[in-house]
């Protein structure tokens, strides 16, 4: 008989038994026939036949055992027995299953995020072989980019990388029949799509090394159009569209391939459309299309190119190559480049990491902390259920002793009890899975919008496997100790005690006490973490920002440089400022290259070197500083106080002497008590300013703006007049009299009056923007608060359970005490002391644990130290209050025991 049919037999024992019954009946009837034929009466024949046959039941049992896998059958019996046992105590079952469902559900929900963001392979062919590549610069440890000429050399020289492609993000404006629209473009060098191993859904993609002009350098990558790059308007320009953009903008027009588009005033041809769901690079807002960067783009400015480390790169390892060997080879290439180009590449290395790690890098630690926290909640749930089981096992001592007396071995009984635990855990897990499918949807609403791969979060097969494994592990964790303990019964004692109230064995009680201490300790640690993250979030929200975001609206406007020179863009922005200020209700409007909460350039690479007149410093030792070009009135609109000197005016133009305004940080760091007004400084970075690095006179000092986010302490900052360093990208801030959102139509109209092809976007109040910048911290704080609240509740329930059980067991003792004249307050005090001992032990261990784990949260906190005694004190007080409340109820019950009733129990 095949294993399958035997398995089947386990689940349909009825069928097997019926067939056996038929066969046995035939046997008996045939025997009767023969006996009757031999001359016996029918009745005698029947009796004889049956007697001869023996017990049909026994025959059946032993025949069936062959057909079923006996252990599986035993398992099925144990499961049925477990379910029956649970049904007999529905309250216990409901509490245990509910606790487990919450714990497993929360874990599954958080795991689904961890899975999508950290674990799932990137949705590309052989995603594990994809590596992120960048140049390392000891001076800019955070930099993660590569320059174009380095990229070309690495690609030509590396044997271990099968292919390599790079790109940079760029924005263009799509015009045509519909409203002008800003589109996110990845400008690609090399065959990105074959590196990723994803073919287009329609049409073709770029052929490798296909020559053709790129749509543009990244913003700020060169000194305007003077960079020496001829911009021919050839028909060779081509783009590949994302499926989403094709569907949204072109309504999935099947004839899209080959069509022409006008992007920022130049024409492009659509080569193809990528498949649905393809996203690369993964960013917010998502990429709409990919354009191609031809090989000659940077060729005419090699000197600039090699230090312009502005491109991201991704490569594919050869299938037989280990990442370590590839890294060793790249180290050789990097040191060769350093020798060959000492000016730009001295000390510059090349690094590769698995692409999936890179994508998740920034968010992995907070996520893992959340995961650890939610795992702690599950552990506490386990402890609670273990406690319930221990209490129940004491009640079931007679049943177990009876089974043991009837010959069940200790292992058999342990197994049986363990199966009961697993049944509990699996039911809890199934409910938990349901909770998680709803919970994940709610969670996705909460996750910060910039969480990479957030759209992949969901309950999928991997998550379900996790749930099942977590349930089984949970069942084992909470089941083993109680089962082993319970199976260890002293037969005679247990059976002799009969119906009398049994006293709890001291050992079982000690075990339960230890479990409660453990869960209090875990809850303390979680509470500490949650308090730290909540404090961080509150501090960030209320941090003195140095500006007044009330009634300020900001939006982003980009003057495509294909259409406007930087100078023209500056003039356009001035036109826009005038148009906006003419709108009734708008108190002021000004453009700046960045918003105050951004804190300068994203990367130090775009931070210029600072030189102060009369203080010569070696070229290599020059400090860097952030800088922001702003229009006059910027400080007033944002409420940044002018501490000294003056704001820029319209007279600070390209024709007038160069000026600068510095912030207090810079004034303090570089001028101390000196008056900086009238001093001169120089900003120098070829990438940004080319050779135009005049001395700028300091005309004003303004207050510091602390930048939102953890890295947001105030940094030295130089403001320069937008008109003296015009740019094609700017944010515009508008201060209004009333609700700024109601001004959006008027603002759109003002922009259209300046350039009808110009979209505005990223329109938000500053208050919203600040909220977004602390979204990650908000998410951390919110989830940790929820988890630690749950942990606290579970720990309190656990404590309550142990104490009330202990009180119930000792009702008799209490009765005697009270009958002998003990003060009810003494009885109450005894129980409270018992609880307080457990609480104190848990608290001590928890605080010690939290202190030991401070390293985990380093760098994720703001305005609070993980060792702050106030934090620990707060946690201790909260925990004591809740825990003492949990003790109070059973203690009061003990004090109110009626001695008569208690003694009658005997």
């Amino acid at each position: 008989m095949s294993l399958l049919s035997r398995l089947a037999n386990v689940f349909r024992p009825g069928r097997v038994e019926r067939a056996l019954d038929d066969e046995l009946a035939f046997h008996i009837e045939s025997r009767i026939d023969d006996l009757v034929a031999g001359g016996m009466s029918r009745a005698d024949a029947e009796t004889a036949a049956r007697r001869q046959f023996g017990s049909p039941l026994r025959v059946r049992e032993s025949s069936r055992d062959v057909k079923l896998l006996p252990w599986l059958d035993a398992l099925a019996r144990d499961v049925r027995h477990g379910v029956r046992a649970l049904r007999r105590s529905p309250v216990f079952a409901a509490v245990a299953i509910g606790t487990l469902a919450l714990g497993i559900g929360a874990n599954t929900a958080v795991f689904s995020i961890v899975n999508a963001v950290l674990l799932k392979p990137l949705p590309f062919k052989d995603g594990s072989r994809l590596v992120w590549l960048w140049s390392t610069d000891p001076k800019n440890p955070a930099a993660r980019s590569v320059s174009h000429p380095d990229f070309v050399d690495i690609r030509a020289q590396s044997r271990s990388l099968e292919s390599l492609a790079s790109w940079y993000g760029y924005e263009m404006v799509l015009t045509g029949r519909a409203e002008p629209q800003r589109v996110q473009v990845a400008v690609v060098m090399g065959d990105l799509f074959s590196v990723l191993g994803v073919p287009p859904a329609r049409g073709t993609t770029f052929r490798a090394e296909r020559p053709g002009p790129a749509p543009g350098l990244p913003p700020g990558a060169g000194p305007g159009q003077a960079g020496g790059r001829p911009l021919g308007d050839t028909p060779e320009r081509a783009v590949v569209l994302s499926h989403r953009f094709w569907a949204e903008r072109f309504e999935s027009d099947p004839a899209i391939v080959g069509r022409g588009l006008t992007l920022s005033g130049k024409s492009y041809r659509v080569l193809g459309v990528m498949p649905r769901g393809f996203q690369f690079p993964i960013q917010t807002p998502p990429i709409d299309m990919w354009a191609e960067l031809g090989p000659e783009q940077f060729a005419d400015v090699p000197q600039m190119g090699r230090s312009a480390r502005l491109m991201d790169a991704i490569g594919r390892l050869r299938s037989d190559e280990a990442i370590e060997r590839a890294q060793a080879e790249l180290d050789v290439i990097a040191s060769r480049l350093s020798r060959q180009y000492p000016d730009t590449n001295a000390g510059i290395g090349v690094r590769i990491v698995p692409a999936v790690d890179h994508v998740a890098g920034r968010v992995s630690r907070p996520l893992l902390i959340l995961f650890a926290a939610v795992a702690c909640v599950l552990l506490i749930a386990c402890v609670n259920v273990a406690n319930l089981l221990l209490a129940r096992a004491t009640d079931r001592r007679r049943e177990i002793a009876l089974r043991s007396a009837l010959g069940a071995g200790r292992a058999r009984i342990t197994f049986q009890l363990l199966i009961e635990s697993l049944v509990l855990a699996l039911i809890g897990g199934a409910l938990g899975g349901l909770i998680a499918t709803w919970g994940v949807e709610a969670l996705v609403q909460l996750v910060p919008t910039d969480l990479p791969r957030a759209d992949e979060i969901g309950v999928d097969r991997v998550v379900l496997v996790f749930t099942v494994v977590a349930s089984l592990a949970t069942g084992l964790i909470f089941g083993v100790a109680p089962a082993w303990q319970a199976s260890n019964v002293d037969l005679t004692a247990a059976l002799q005690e009969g119906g009398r109230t049994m006293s709890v064995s001291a050992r079982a009680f000690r075990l339960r006490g230890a479990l409660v201490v453990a869960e209090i300790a875990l809850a303390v640690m979680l509470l500490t973490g949650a308090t730290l993250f909540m404090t961080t979030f509150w501090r960030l929200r209320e941090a003195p920002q140095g500006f007044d975001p009330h009634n300020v609206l900001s939006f982003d406007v980009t003057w495509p440089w294909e259409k406007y020179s930087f100078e023209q863009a500056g003039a356009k922005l001035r036109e826009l400022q005038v148009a906006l200020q003419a709108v009734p209700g708008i108190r002021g409007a000004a453009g700046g290259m960045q918003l105050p909460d951004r804190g300068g350039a994203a990367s130090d690479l775009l931070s210029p070197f600072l030189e102060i007149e009369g203080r010569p410093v070696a070229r290599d030792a020059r400090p860097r500083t952030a800088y922001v070009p702003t229009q006059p009135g910027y400080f007033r609109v944002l409420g940044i106080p002018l501490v000294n000197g003056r704001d820029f005016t319209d007279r600070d133009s390209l024709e007038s002497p160069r000026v600068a305004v510095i912030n207090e940080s810079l004034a303090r760091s570089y001028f101390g008590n000196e008056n900086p007004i009238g001093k001169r400084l120089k900003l120098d970075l070829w990438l940004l300013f080319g050779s135009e690095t005049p001395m700028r006179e300091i005309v004003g000092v303004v207050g510091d703006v602390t930048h939102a986010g953890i890295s947001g302490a105030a940094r030295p900052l130089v403001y320069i007049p937008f008109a003296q360093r015009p740019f094609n990208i700017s944010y515009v801030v508008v201060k209004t009299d009333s609700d700024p959102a109601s001004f959006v139509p008027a603002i759109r109209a003002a922009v259209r009056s300046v350039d009808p092809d110009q979209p505005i976007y990223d329109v938000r109040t500053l208050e919203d923007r600040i909220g977004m910048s602390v979204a990650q911290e908000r998410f951390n704080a919110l989830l940790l608060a929820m988890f630690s609240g749950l942990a606290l509740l579970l720990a309190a329930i656990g404590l309550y359970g142990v104490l009330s059980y202990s009180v119930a067991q000792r009702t008799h003792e209490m009765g005697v005490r009270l009958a002998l004249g003990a003060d009810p307050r003494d009885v109450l005090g005894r129980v409270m002391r018992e609880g307080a001992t457990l609480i104190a032990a848990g608290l001590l261990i928890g605080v010690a644990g939290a202190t030991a784990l401070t390293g985990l949260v380093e760098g994720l906190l703001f305005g609070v130290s993980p060792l702050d005694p106030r934090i620990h004190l707060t946690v201790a007080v909260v925990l004591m209050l809740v825990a003492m409340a949990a003790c109070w109820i059973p203690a009061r019950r003990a004090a109110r025991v009626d001695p008569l009733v208690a003694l009658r129990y005997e």
Partner: protein
Amino acid sequence: MADEAALLPGTLDVLILKSVSLAPEHGYGVLLRIEQITGGALLVEQGALYPALARLEHQGLLESEWGTSDNNRRAKFYKLTAAGRRRLKAETERWERLATAMSRALRAQEA
């Protein structure tokens, strides 16, 4: 009943295989045939027969089919599989060797 020997352990399986080797047979038939083959010398305990049949079927030595018996009742017929035939041959040889050895040993004692 004195001349009815109880079955040696391990012999029942061979006897069952032997009795279904000629033609498919139902359980009751197997019982009758064993009594007939051994001339009533060996009595099969009826309660042991069906577990043995199930065991042999499970081992793949027998296969079964529901059919109609001589007395027009529904009965389960067993027949040998190829593996069963091989096992019967091997067991028969083993028994013959054992029987020869036994009789030699007994005769030697008599001598």
